């Protein structure tokens, strides 16, 4: 029905993982996409170099929200530095229009179509860029 808004993406939009800022955290950062007005806050808790909890909240479009949901789903219980490298890859992959499920695995498939819409790719990048800010603050 829609090239961009496929069922898998909409599922994340409608019941997002980690949409709850009420967690214990070590770093909280806000990100803003001036092009479309998306706003997001990301919080992470890290213990012994592993992400023990990650959450987000914000007023954002379905793409941003679904991407944030995938991020929370994928990065929880992941070593912090490995999470950072996933974020780097995803951001670069969207930039160069790569197939994200080939690059990072099937869980990222809902975002595959986004790369073909350059303006909206920014929306998908925003949660991950905000996560990078958390990494910069806490980096080992």
């Amino acid at each position, binding site marked *: *029905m829609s090239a961009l808004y496929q069922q898998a993406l909409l599922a994340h*939009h*409608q*019941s997002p993982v980690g949409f709850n800022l009420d967690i214990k955290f070590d770093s909280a950062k806000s990100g803003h996409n001036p*092009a*479309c*007005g998306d706003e997001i806050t990301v919080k992470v808790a890290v213990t012994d170099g592993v992400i023990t909890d990650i959450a987000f909240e914000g007023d954002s479009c*379905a793409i941003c929200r679904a991407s944030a949901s995938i991020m929370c789903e994928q990065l929880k219980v992941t070593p912090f530095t490995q999470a950072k490298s996933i974020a780097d890859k995803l951001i670069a992959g969207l930039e160069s229009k790569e197939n994200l499920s080939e690059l990072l695995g099937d869980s990222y498939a809902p975002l595959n179509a986004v790369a073909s819409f350059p303006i909206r790719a920014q929306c998908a990048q925003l949660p991950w860029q905000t996560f990078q800010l958390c990494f910069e603050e806490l980096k080992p």
Partner: protein
Amino acid sequence: MALISRWKADFPVFTQSDQPLYYLDSAASSLVPKVVADASYQYLLNEHANSHRGFYPLSAQLTQRIEDIRAQVANFINAPSADNIIFNSGTTAGIHLVANGLNRLKSGSGNIVISAAEHHANLLPWQQIAENSDIELRVVPLAASGQVDMPMLERLIDDNTLIVAVTHLSNVLGVENPIASIGKLTRQHGAFLLVDGAQFAAHGKVNVQALGCDFYVFSGHKLYSGHGSGVLFASDVAIAELAPVVLGGGMVNSVSVSDSAWATGVRKFEAGTLNAQAIIALSAGLSYLKQAEAEGAHTYLAELTQFTLDKLSAFGGINIYSVQQSKPQSIISFNLERVHSHDVAMVLAEHHIAVRAGHHCAQPLHHCLGVGSTVRISLGLYNQAEDIEQLLVGLETCRQLFIAR
């Protein structure tokens, strides 16, 4: 009620492709009718030269043509004379000329009054003056009607007010401001009044003398004329106080390496080669619009706007930010509850519907509305009930996609 456009066939874009086009973004740029494109084409083929410079017929004829168009534009807004009309590249450029050229703004003190509904083009230049001097920027809030709050305006204007700069028609709310009343108040305090007519010029009869404004600015591309032309009307008193901001060829009487004397009249505000192609397109666009107005365009568009508002209200789950007015003005901003404006615009694009989503270069106004962004639809001469029916189909898809049941 037959809401079928008698003008749509004048716009070749609708028959150019086998894909349909439901264009609801005329407030950004209106589409171009064939007569305007033809005028541009004929100009490039047969009349192109550098105006105001050459002694040969091609240039001299073009100079005459542009001066005739100056008179046509003066007539379009009922300016006292063609000597009050300055050509430039658009509303943004026109406001810039005033903000940077007006002597009184160089005094370094006093205040400037704008409204909370201004487009960034009529906000940032004033903000910058305030940042770089002791001049204070005062922002008048909006009343529930969406218009400038008049009692607040009365309180904020005083004898130290240098200029009041307000929009004639909000590009987000589609609400018309009571400019003539604002003009009266402004004059009582000896301040100038600049009116941003970018949106209004396409939708109503402009009479700068009745409005009592010192400056009136608008852009050709919202008047069916394509890109590249803009008009700054300045009253005689205003011109006397305005210094040229852009300096260069064609604006001087005499130049030596140490000293120059500006040309008299409006030409001193038009340094460099004029965009004759755009000015000729503007002329054709204004003639086209005038004809359409004579054929009932304003009434048609008001009816179509009301039809749209009724349909959107009946659809349900939509927050409409435009306020009911006696004469609806072709611009409606809204949000589908719980769906981001950009998602709505993307899905509508998949239905071949062109709308604008975001803050429409009016972020402060969106703060007032308490939303980050809105979907804006704006109507032009080619629109008809069919466009609105298709919009509702698109919105229904949005509802099914995004709103969990």
